[in-house]
Every structure is written in structure tokens, then in C-alpha cells.
């Protein structure tokens, strides 16, 4: 087997994996902490990505674009928590009800984005994504380092937040036992807003990276949502680290599968991995909560 091809596919997979890891960590944080199966996480991703593209095309400074994208992601996440999930959970909280409501929102967002921004391909034109030959036969773009760097920094920061700050510890407690939180006089509703804000914010950098590399379309959220969900399950529900690692793994699997299979099977590979885990190891890689 061509060693350079393996290296190339591995690096490409890592770049994609970094994007998946970010969205998966956001999804896993929300699901693990609040038990809300936040299917509209894909919609957060789409909105953030398009806001960045819009800002870029309007000639805003990139930093401003990033801020705008994060802001929109956070607002959307909080809005979902306040106006969709909370009212549903107030009278009953069956998983399916939440799932359907969130799915409905995803459909609305996808079509609104299509109406406003045009359907089809949208990307930002930057030289960051243009790969150059770094080793014989191995091409790498600067965006690779950006993606890896952003993913690592954010993940370290998030872990530090969850283990070192009061709010972070409270979030973790919420995941373990919501009643306990209330007994200690903390507001579980404020904590869950915080969770949605944090988790949604993680989708923004991922969306921006995707706008720079493969480009976006209005339906991109579906794919992202599926992968985040898959990564959360493969990683093990309740484990942020698991979701991030699984996100990277899925990205790499999608890429490396081309060594043995034809190109059309790349996408199916991630879902095969998901299937395998659900059937044979439903607790995932780092599962702390058994599949209920």
C-alpha cells in the first residue's frame, strides 16, 4: 500500500475529524447535561456557517464574522432551549416529542436559509484552504493547522471550564442528578441555558472551517447532525472526550476507507461504524451511562 497515500488520507481525515469533533462535543455536552436530544444542532451549524459567509462577502473583518457566527449560534441554541424544549418538557418530555419538535425546526431553518441565501453552494474564498505539497505526494493546507489548533484549544478550554469553575462543576452535577442541583439551590434552568450556549458556540468554529474547506449548502446541517449524533453514541453518551475522539475517528474512517473500498462508500462507512457500536457496544468507547 502506498504509504504517502495513507498519510495523505490520514491527514485529510484528521482535518475533517476536527470539524466533526467540535460539533460532536457540542451535541454531547447538551445531550449529556440536559438529556435533550438536540437534533437542531445541525441547524445551529448551518446558521453559523451562513452568517460567516455573509459577513465575509460583505467585507467584514474575519474576526467580526467569527463573532457574529458565534453570537448567532449561541442565540439560536438558547432560543431552542427557551422556546421549544422547555415548554415541551414542562408538560411531558418524551424523547420522541422533543425529537420531532427539533426536527421541525431544522426543516424550517434549512428552507429559510435556502430562501434567503440562495440554494446550492456557498463558501468563503480564501487561500487558507489551498493545499501545497509539504512532502512528496502529500498536500496540506494551512487550514489543516487552523482546524487542529482550534479543536485542541477549544477542547482544552472546555475541559478546564467544566472541571475548574463553579458553573462547570454545576453543569456536570446537572448531568448526574438534576434533583441534587435543585436541592443545593442552584437554578437548573439557568444551567441548561448555559449548556445550550456553550454547546451551540462550539458549532460555530466548525461551521466556519467547513465554509472555508468543502463549502456549505443549506442542507449541510442534516449531515452534520447525523455525524454529531453518531459520534456522541460511538463515544459513549455522557462522555465529552468520547464524542470528540469519536468525531475524529469518524472523519478518519470516512477518509481511510478509500484505501480498501471505492469512493462511493465513504459516507456509508461512518454509519456502519455507528451501527456496529449500537449493536455490539451501546455504551460506546468511553461510555459512563448504559444504554437505556
Amino acid at each position, binding site marked *: 500500500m502506498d504509504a504517502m497515500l495513507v498519510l495523505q488520507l490520514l491527514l485529510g481525515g484528521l482535518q475533517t475529524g476536527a470539524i466533526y469533533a467540535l460539533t460532536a462535543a457540542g451535541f454531547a455536552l447538551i445531550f449529556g447535561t440536559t438529556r435533550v436530544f438536540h437534533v437542531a444542532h445541525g441547524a445551529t451549524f448551518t446558521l453559523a456557517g451562513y452568517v460567516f459567509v455573509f459577513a465575509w462577502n460583505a467585507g467584514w473583518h474575519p474576526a467580526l464574522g467569527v463573532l457574529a457566527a458565534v453570537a448567532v449560534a449561541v442565540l439560536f441554541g438558547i432560543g431552542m432551549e427557551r422556546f421549544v424544549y422547555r415548554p415541551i418538557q414542562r408538560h411531558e418530555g418524551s*424523547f*420522541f416529542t422533543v425529537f420531532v419538535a427539533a426536527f421541525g425546526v431544522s*426543516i*424550517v431553518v434549512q428552507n429559510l436559509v435556502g430562501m434567503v441565501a440562495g440554494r446550492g453552494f456557498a463558501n468563503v474564498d480564501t487561500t487558507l484552504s489551498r493545499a501545497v505539497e509539504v512532502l512528496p505526494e502529500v498536500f496540506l493546507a494551512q487550514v489543516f493547522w487552523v482546524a487542529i489548533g482550534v479543536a485542541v484549544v477549544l477542547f482544552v478550554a472546555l475541559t478546564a471550564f467544566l472541571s475548574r469553575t463553579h458553573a462547570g462543576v454545576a453543569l456536570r452535577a446537572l448531568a448526574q442528578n438534576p434533583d441534587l442541583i435543585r436541592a443545593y439551590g442552584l437554578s437548573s434552568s439557568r444551567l441548561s441555558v448555559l449548556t445550550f450556549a456553550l454547546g451551540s458556540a462550539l458549532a460555530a468554529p466548525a461551521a466556519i472551517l467547513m465554509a472555508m474547506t468543502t463549502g456549505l449548502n443549506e442542507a449541510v446541517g442534516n449531515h452534520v447532525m447525523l455525524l454529531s449524533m453518531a459520534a456522541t453514541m460511538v463515544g459513549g453518551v455522557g462522555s465529552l472526550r468520547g464524542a470528540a475522539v469519536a468525531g475524529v475517528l469518524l472523519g478518519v474512517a470516512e477518509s481511510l476507507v478509500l484505501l480498501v473500498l471505492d469512493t462511493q462508500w465513504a459516507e*456509508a462507512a461512518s*454509519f456502519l461504524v455507528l*451501527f456496529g457500536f449500537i449493536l455490539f457496544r451501546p455504551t460506546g468507547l468511553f461510555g459512563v451511562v448504559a*444504554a*437505556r
Partner: protein
Amino acid sequence: MTAYLASLATLAAIFAILAVTLNFMVGYAGIFSVAHAVFFGLGAYAGAQVALHLVPDALAACAVAALIAGGLSLCLALPALRVRGEYFVAASLGLQMMALTLFSEAKGLTGGLGGLIGIPPPRLFGFAVGALPLSLAALALILLAIAAMARGSFGRTLQSIRDAESAAEALGKNVAVAKALAVAFACAGAGVAGALFALHMQFVNVESFTLEQSVLVMAMVIVGGTGTLLGPVVGAVLLLSLPAGLAFLPFIPPTEVGAVQQIIYGLAMTLLMIFRPAGLVGDLSRGRSEA
């Protein structure tokens, strides 16, 4: 005009079959799947192949379609039903995505993206029949079967599983077998719908069996009301007539009709879940506690 209405009614009946069978899984047995279009597709391909290569008999096509869709769903459900809730939904989503790749690649059976053309119109015992009476008859039979089952002991077992699985298990109900049978029945029904769809359209390709289609069927069930007998039929008719209804609203630019329609059923799903989780037809008090 009549021909147009008949063609619409046929589609409505076919989608009603899909909706009531999905509802049988979701509303009666509490099994949430977003892969119903996969079994619809399996049935369509099976029915099309029977009609193309064996005999263009609607009964034969439906029977083979039901066997294949039901049988395969049984094979998939037995291992997948060991997990619950989120996991099963995720597995069904994964199945939906993989099945699309398989449908596109298994060209010998499905014609790939190009699809199968020249499917003969339906016949019954050698006589030409319309797709409409066939679809209505199939819908009526399936509704009767569901009504009978819901009232019988099988239905009660399923409902007890839906409401409290552990309790049902403790009472000595064979949960795994009951759930698997429910899935097999629902998917066989989707297969029948698929065969009728193939005979009605005379053309099938993978684009009719996408995630969007699964979501549409799910929306029909939800808008109509889960766990009710006729709710999904109402949901199917409503959502299918939505595009035609929108055409009468002149302020929607023609290029946005499709998007507006999707937004409407997206909004309907969300708002119903927030304000009326039992659906339009559903009993509100029951829905609040169980839906």
C-alpha cells in the same frame, strides 16, 4: 380532472398506508423509526421486479413486497431492538443513509440512480385494474387489521410495552417478540405501499426513498396524531394536499412554493409538539400523558 384527482387520491392512499403502518410502530408500540422510506423502497423495488419479470399481478407484487420488506425488517429489528429510544432512532437514521447508498449501487435490482422504467400498470387475475381501487382496498385492509390488533391481546401487549416496558416484562410479556412482530407488520405494510407506488408510477428510482420521504411520513403521523387509527390518514391527506393548496396563495413567489411548503410542515411539527402533542385527531388528555 377526474384522472388528476384519481392520481392524487392514489398517492394519498399509498401515503396513508405508510403513515398508518409507521403509526403502528410509533403510536402503538412506542418504537421510533425514521427509516420507513427504506422499507417503502424495498417494497417498490420488489414489486417492480415482480411486475417486470414475473407477472404484472398486483396481488403477487404486493405479497412479494410485503414478504421482503417485512422479512428484512425482522432481521434488522431483532438485534436493533435490544436498545431503546435515542439509540434505535440513531440506528434507523444510519440505516436510512446506508440504504440510499445500497439502493444507488445495487444496479441489478434497483437500476441505481437511473431507476426502473416500463413497469406495467397493475392487473388483478389477468384483468386490468386501476391503482386507485387497489390502494384504497389495501389501505382499508391494513386499517382493519390494525383496529383488530389494537383491540386484541397483541395490541394490549404492545401498549403496555409502550407505556412501561419494564413492567410489561415483569408481567411475563415477551417484549422482544412483540416488538419485532410489530416492526415486521409495519414494514410489510410499507412494502405493500411501495409495490402499489411502483405500479402506480410505472417508474421508481432511489429519489423516492430518501430521508426527506421518511420525515414526511413521520410528519403525517404526528400532524394527524400518534396512537389514533385515523389520525395518520388525515395527516397524509393534509400534507399531500398542502402543495396544491399553496398554489392558490398568490403572494408566494412560485420559486419559493416548495420551500414554503417544507417550512409549513416543519413549523407544524414543532408547534404541535409544543402545544398539542397528541396531534390534530388525537385525544388531548391522553396525549399529554403518553404521546
